[in-house]
């Protein structure tokens, strides 16, 4: 097939968006299901093309394809091309995005099913939902394929916009509207850094082409200072998008959106775009020790920091949201210690099991109409498919051998031991916390007796559990791509990592076998602790909570960061400080200047107006005297 077909991968969902938004939703509201069918069809097309592209890239030399680009802008000497980059990173991301998106779209048909008389689940909303989902999928696919910084930034903002639209999908709820605004503003903070980095790189290299920049960096044509600042700027964009500490505050609130949205955007794809961005610009990070260290520290700190908050939440989606932040921290750390091969491998595995966890939470919500785990329990009897798939995903997240999560996570832990010992301590502790919080969720939701009020507990329809089952299969097997180092060699062009050379090699690896044992033991201990507290009740949860009293409160209040941002930064520094100052400067300075000019002109005119007496003779006398004065001047001076 000709390589130009790659353009269709991201254009198909865009076509689907336009079709739904401009034709189906205004005119064919009665056949609302068409919106879902169009979306699913376009994504199936993208998925097929992505798989073809992955296959072609695998067979291509250097694992990259040349796709003809198109002239976009020509300003003076500056020519901006829109082109597509098809290398191993793009190919993997394309498959992740299309697979998860397809599963989520199928699932959404059940979750977003219109209910007569319910304004939250209306036919109009159904079509709007699928229009946005198409737009998001198209933007995300464009983001991973763009070969040009400007083009990439366009899609980068595009996914941010879709995230905003979908978090605020139920915009009549104040909490949803606020969460959407918060997400938009906080990610925008990071994007400022990203935009500055783009401009800075352009000023210093004269090109916006990503591969050209990498070539210049590799040739040593860019100074280390420039590379460091550019890499830090790019990372700041990634921090906003990937919800890294201290810009993580928007992600838990983003759970106000419909649950399939959380699964697609806030677990598998958009939030992972930050890790993708770092991987895309990894040659820059590699060239700067400072940038790489920052990446590692922020990643490691975020991993454990978010995990502690996940321990105490009662909202099932929030626990999973904190888990996502924590895992994104793992990815960043993985990128710092092992390069794209490792970071993206975790992204790849995480996408499937985390999307599955969210879909599971959505399925539970579909039955119980709540997200509060205190009103759940015992659902395993009513929802066998959801229970089974959630269990698999939880095991995968906890990192149990031989599920997919194990392969990437253990490698990150082992690599941190080699590269940064302090980070190793943090992520190893996080491994324990991860296993604990996710099984706390599992036991509180599916174990024990039902504590809620809903009378008709039921399994979700097949259209919902079928995609979950498919994702469950991926959550088990996706990591096996890297068992013999296949993934690493694909991403790293032939280079593989230490102990990944077989199913049991990690146990016999001379250097890392004890790391693997330790992390498995920690995960097992986490699961056991969760079992002891929330299932077998050998220890009462309240007792443990009291024992950790202040710490528990601290984590439950999210370390008071929301309060800090809202009261100190937003209200204190910005509203009362900066904005008040600007207001004064505006009133006294800008308005003062404008009014002052007007006022002085008025005062001057008031004086001058006395000269206009209406006495024609006076005017004549003035003219005559002026003439005489001129004549005298000519005679005596000229």
């Amino acid at each position: 097939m000709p390589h130009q077909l790659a353009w269709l991968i991201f254009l198909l969902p865009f076509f689907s968006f336009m079709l739904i938004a401009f034709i189906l939703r205004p005119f064919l509201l009665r056949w609302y299901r068409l919106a879902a069918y169009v979306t699913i069809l376009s994504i199936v097309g993208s998925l097929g093309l992505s798989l073809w592209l992955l296959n072609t890239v695998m067979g291509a030399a250097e694992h990259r394809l040349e796709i003809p680009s198109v002239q976009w802008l020509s300003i003076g000497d500056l020519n901006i091309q829109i082109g597509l980059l098809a290398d191993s990173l793009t190919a993997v991301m394309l498959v992740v995005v299309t697979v998860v998106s397809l599963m989520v779209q199928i699932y959404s048909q059940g979750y977003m099913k219109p209910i007569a008389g319910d304004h939250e689940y209306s036919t109009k909303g159904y079509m709007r939902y699928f229009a946005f989902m198409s737009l998001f999928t198209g933007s995300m696919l464009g983001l991973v394929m763009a070969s040009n910084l400007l083009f990439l930034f366009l899609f980068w903002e595009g996914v941010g916009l879709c995230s905003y639209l979908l978090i605020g999908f139920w915009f009549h709820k104040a909490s949803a509207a606020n969460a959407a605004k918060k997400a938009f503003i906080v990610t925008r903070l990071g994007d400022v850094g990203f935009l500055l980095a783009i401009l800075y790189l352009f000023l210093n290299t004269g090109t916006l082409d990503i591969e050209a920049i990498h070539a210049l960096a590799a040739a040593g044509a860019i100074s280390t200072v420039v590379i460091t600042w550019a890499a830090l700027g790019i990372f700041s964009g990634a921090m906003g998008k990937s919800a890294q500490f201290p810009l993580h505050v928007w992600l838990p609130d983003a759970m106000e959106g419909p649950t399939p949205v959380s699964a697609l955007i806030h677990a598998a794809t958009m939030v992972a775009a930050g890790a993708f961005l770092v991987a895309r610009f990894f040659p820059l990070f590699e060239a700067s020790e400072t940038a790489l260290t920052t990446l590692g520290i922020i990643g490691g700190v975020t991993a454990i920091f978010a995990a502690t908050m996940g321990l105490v939440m009662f909202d099932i989606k929030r626990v999973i949201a904190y888990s996502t932040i924590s895992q994104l921290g793992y990815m960043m750390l993985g990128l710092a210690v092992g390069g794209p091969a490792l970071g993206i491998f975790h992204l790849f595995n995480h996408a499937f099991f985390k999307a599955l966890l969210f879909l599971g939470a959505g399925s539970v919500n579909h039955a119980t109409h709540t997200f509060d785990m205190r009103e759940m329990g015992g659902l395993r009897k009513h929802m066998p498919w959801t229970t089974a798939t959630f269990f698999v995903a939880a095991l995968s997240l906890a990192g149990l051998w031989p599920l997919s999560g194990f392969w990437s996570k253990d490698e990150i832990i082992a690599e941190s031991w080699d590269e940064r010992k302090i980070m190793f301590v943090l992520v190893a502790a996080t491994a324990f916390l991860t296993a604990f919080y996710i099984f706390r969720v599992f036991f509180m939701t599916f174990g024990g007796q039902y504590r809620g009020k809903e009378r008709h507990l039921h399994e979700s329809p097949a259209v919902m559990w079928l995609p979950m089952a498919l994702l469950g299969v991926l959550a088990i097997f996706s990591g096996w791509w890297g068992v013999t180092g296949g993934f690493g060699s694909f991403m790293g062009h032939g280079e593989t990592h230490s102990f990944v050379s077989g199913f049991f090699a990690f146990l016999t690896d001379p250097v890392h076998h004890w790391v693997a044992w330790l992390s498995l033991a920690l995960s097992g201990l986490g699961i056991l602790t969760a079992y002891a507290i929330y299932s077998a009740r050998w220890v009462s949860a309240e007792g443990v909570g009291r024992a950790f009293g202040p710490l528990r409160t601290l984590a439950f209040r999210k370390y008071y960061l929301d309060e800090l941002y809202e009261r100190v930064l937003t209200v204190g520094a910005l509203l009362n400080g900066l904005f008040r100052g600007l207001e004064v400067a505006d009133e006294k300075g800008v308005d003062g200047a404008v009014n002052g000019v007007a006022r002085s002109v008025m005062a001057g005119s008031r004086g001058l107006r006395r000269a206009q007496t209406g006495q024609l003779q006076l005017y004549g006398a003035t003219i005559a005297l002026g003439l005489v004065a001129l004549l005298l001047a000519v005679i005596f001076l000229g």
Partner: protein
Amino acid sequence: MSIGLEQYLLLSAVLFTIGLVGALSKRNAIIVLMCIEIMLNAVNLTLVAFYRYGGLDITGMVFALFVMLVAAAEVALGLAIVFSLYRSRETVDLAEMDLMKW
């Protein structure tokens, strides 16, 4: 002392100045009109003097005739305006005519 161009020009300047001062200082509109006539005639005198002493080119005399013609029309129009003003305002004092004031 023979009478030459210089004397005509001096007389003309004196007449013009008298007319100008009168036109700018008198309050009565009729007198102002008369002063304007004096100024016009001063100019005519100059033109004719230049004709007489300047090589007998006919242009100067023709100009003087034109000026008389225009002056006649101007006086007719000016007097009509003064009458009209007197009818509506019962005065011909120019200091009262300040409608063009701001």
